[in-house]
């Protein structure tokens, strides 16, 4: 179904996909060298949001509506994991 997209839009979606992928790789710099643990949590959260964006761009590029659901599930997992890690950092465990 990718041929259904006009050429201009196909190029735009491809450029946005490349940009989002490069930004995700750049955000991993902060995961590696980030001075404190909250820095790493913030940048992992950013990577999660970027992956959500990549999933929805892929859904537009291929015309598969299933990947919109994939991006929503990724957003939910990212939120829950952010809350869990922040709680683990402060309290020492997640469920006491």
């Amino acid at each position, binding site marked *: 179904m990718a041929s259904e997209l006009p050429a201009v*839009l196909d190029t735009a979606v491809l450029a946005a996909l490349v940009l989002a992928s490069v930004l995700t790789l750049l*955000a991993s710099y902060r995961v590696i060298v980030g001075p404190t643990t909250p820095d790493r949590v913030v940048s992992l959260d950013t990577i999660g*949001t*970027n992956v959500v964006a990549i999933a*929805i761009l892929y859904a537009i590029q291929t015309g598969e509506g299933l990947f919109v659901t994939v991006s929503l599930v990724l*957003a939910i997992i990212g939120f829950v994991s952010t809350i869990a890690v922040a709680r683990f950092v402060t309290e020492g465990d997640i469920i006491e």
Partner: protein
Amino acid sequence: MHVLRVAVLAALLAIGSFFLLVGTVGLLRLPDVYNRMHATSKATTLGAASLFLAGAVYFGPEGPGLVSLVGIVFLFLTAPTGAHVISRAAHKMGVPFYGDADWPDPGREEQ
């Protein structure tokens, strides 16, 4: 595909990519975990919401397009909550503020 729809889609894609770029540049360049959290939680949420809106325009008002609209609502509800929880955790861990910034009222926390 109608030419107006193509134009709207291209504009939404450009806006979304721009805000994702701003968020990641803020994550890499700002000096402090609180500043970085501030940059990413707003800009990246706006960028992803704009791309979700592009998905809603592309897929129409039912099926995957409706899921995209639900995704926008979910992002706008959860991204500020997650950022708030992270910054509270950072403050509890004792991560210092950048420069001469300080907690607004030192006694208010204990109440």
